[in-house]
């Protein structure tokens, strides 16, 4: 207890700095995955993508990031185990941040597509099970989280498959694809707007101080969905039918309509990514702050301090602003055959899955979900060529990340413990 009183401020500052750096790293690196599909299919320029990502990553982090942050903060480790030694939990949270941050830096340097979520969860499990006791980990919850990592890409893939098939039925395989695209695309927009706002309203806004009732929440979500659709319809209405493109490729005009839709799904993707991934950086920080502020009492009910979520959001945006440009540029050049109609199906499916998971507090991997969604479109024979070798590498890097994060956090845990040992 003395340690927390004497060094409390220092511990919070340390955690805040490391948490901010981690959020910054997520912004710089991870966001490429969230925005890459939009830039790759040429629906957005790099500048537009950065701008959208900044606004919606922050909004997602601030408005819908609370649930996952709570899970990371106190859903994985059994707080009762630390009732007598809260400082150990503080050390552990800080060392987890260090471990995940360093693992991410190493992985980015080597070009491995690791998941921030996996590194932080691995780190938390590592310090708690080895540094303290294997009973200190809420294994039932952990297995639920790990299970969700297997299931969410599958769900996203399934949704992507359905969305793609519906677009085929309603638009591509018809007499007048362009007219039908104009007619049906606003509905997809409405769906995207509805899901995003519903999850935000039902799960996110309470910590901002807004409490909206169930019926009201649905009403507002529907209203937002319709608003998005109407704006989209106006923009689509301005698209000129280019008759010269008819002979070259029948669907060039149709893809233009989908490019507008893709702006909406890119916003959703950024929002979903912010809502889920900000927690990886600030969840442990939130834990440290609440423990220190309460003088060692580990309360599960305490609200997250007001400044933590925005700080994570700012961290992501800062990373984006500094490095996002370069990262997105590198990936934008590589893709050849991803048209907006495919990109939208993958993004909408992934974003919906992620944001729903965020609403239920499940920390899942955005990238993993997106890969699942892309494979779903591939299954529907929508993508010219997918490199399964890369998919395998991605899966391996995810599996390796858990023990790596755990090992590093164990090392840091004992180091910090040693430093503060009386």
């Amino acid at each position, binding site marked *: 207890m003395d340690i927390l009183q004497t060094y409390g401020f220092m511990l919070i500052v340390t955690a805040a700095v490391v948490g901010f750096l981690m959020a910054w790293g997520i912004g710089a690196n991870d966001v*490429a995955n969230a925005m890459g599909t939009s830039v790759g299919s040429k629906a957005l320029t790099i500048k537009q993508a950065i701008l959208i990502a900044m606004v919606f990553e922050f909004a997602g982090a601030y408005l819908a990031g609370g649930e996952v942050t709570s899970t990371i903060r106190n859903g994985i480790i059994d707080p009762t185990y630390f009732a007598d030694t809260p400082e150990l939990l503080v050390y552990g949270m800080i060392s987890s941040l260090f471990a995940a941050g360093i693992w991410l830096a190493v*992985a980015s340097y080597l*070009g491995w*597509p690791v998941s921030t979520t996996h590194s932080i969860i691995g780190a938390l499990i590592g310090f708690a099970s080895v540094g303290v006791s294997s009973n200190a980990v809420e294994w039932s919850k952990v297995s639920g989280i790990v299970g969700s990592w297997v299931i969410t890409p599958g769900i996203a893939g399934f949704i992507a498959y359905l969305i*793609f098939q519906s677009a085929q039925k309603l638009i591509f395989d018809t007499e007048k694809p362009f007219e039908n695209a104009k007619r049906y695309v606003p509905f997809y927009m409405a769906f995207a707007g509805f899901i995003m706002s519903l999850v935000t309203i039902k799960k996110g806004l309470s910590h901002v101080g807004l409490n909206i009732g169930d019926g009201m929440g649905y009403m507002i979500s529907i209203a937002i969905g319709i608003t998005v659709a109407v704006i989209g319809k106006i923009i689509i209405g301005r698209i000129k039918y280019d008759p010269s493109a008819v002979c070259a490729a029948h669907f060039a005009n*149709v893809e233009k309509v989908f490019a507008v839709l893709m702006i909406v799904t890119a916003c959703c993707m950024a929002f979903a990514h912010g809502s889920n991934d900000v927690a990886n950086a600030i969840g442990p920080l939130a834990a440290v702050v609440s423990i220190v502020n309460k003088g060692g009492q580990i309360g599960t009910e305490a609200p997250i301090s007001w400044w933590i979520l925005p700080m994570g959001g700012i961290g992501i945006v800062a990373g984006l602003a500094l490095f996002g440009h370069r990262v997105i540029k590198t990936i934008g050049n590589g893709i050849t055959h991803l048209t907006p109609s495919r990109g939208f199906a993958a993004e909408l499916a992934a974003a919906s899955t992620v944001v729903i998971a965020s609403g239920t507090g499940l920390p899942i991997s955005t990238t993993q979900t997106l890969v699942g969604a892309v494979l779903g479109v591939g299954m529907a024979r929508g993508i010219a060529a997918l*490199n399964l070798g890369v*998919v395998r590498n991605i899966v391996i890097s995810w599996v390796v990340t858990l023990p790596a994060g755990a090992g590093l956090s164990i090392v840091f845990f004992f180091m910090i413990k040693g430093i503060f040992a009386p």
Partner: protein
Amino acid sequence: MPMNSFLGVFAKSPLKPLEDHINLVHQCSQGLLPFFEAVYAEDWKTAQDRQQTISKLEKQADVIKRELRINLPIGIFMPIQRQDVLDLLTQQDKIANKAKDISGRILGRQLTIPEQLQSQFLIYLQRCLDATEQAKQVINELDDLLETGFKGREVKLVEDMIERLDSIEDDTDKLQISLRRSLLSIEKNLNPVDVMFLYSIIEWVGELADISERVGSRLELMLAN
């Protein structure tokens, strides 16, 4: 900077190179028209230049073929079978090879087409080249086939195009028979060795259409999968 990105999942599309390849192949076979023009005029200098053009295009098509094969390792997941893509490519490539062989053989022997056959032969050649043209059009539908997930209306459209290709090939068969008959009626007055080669040239030109038809049926198999 090494990329920490999932976008490596998207592999290079084999469809665009397939289209580029058939377009080159088609351009290469079209070179036979100006070539035979020079042959009819017995202007062997010009004929040689035009044969060079054909063989240059054939080489360019080979480059695309090789690149596509290299970029198609086993771990690639595509909406169409990998083997079908490779087979299709092989067939397409044969068209260019055949065009090069025809021009090469004519030039090498300075083989002239007998005057009585010239107009009939030209019609025959043009019809065979119509077949390669149609094959080109069919392959260029691959883009749209991908857009529609290889099903529905677009498949129907392509199947109709393949049917047209088949009927063009039927035409060329008929033209070939009558051309051979005409040759038979005048062959006594010609150099026997030249006649042998003329028969084989007629056959090779016909093969341009045969192979084009095979390109179409390969694609049909691809769609049936």
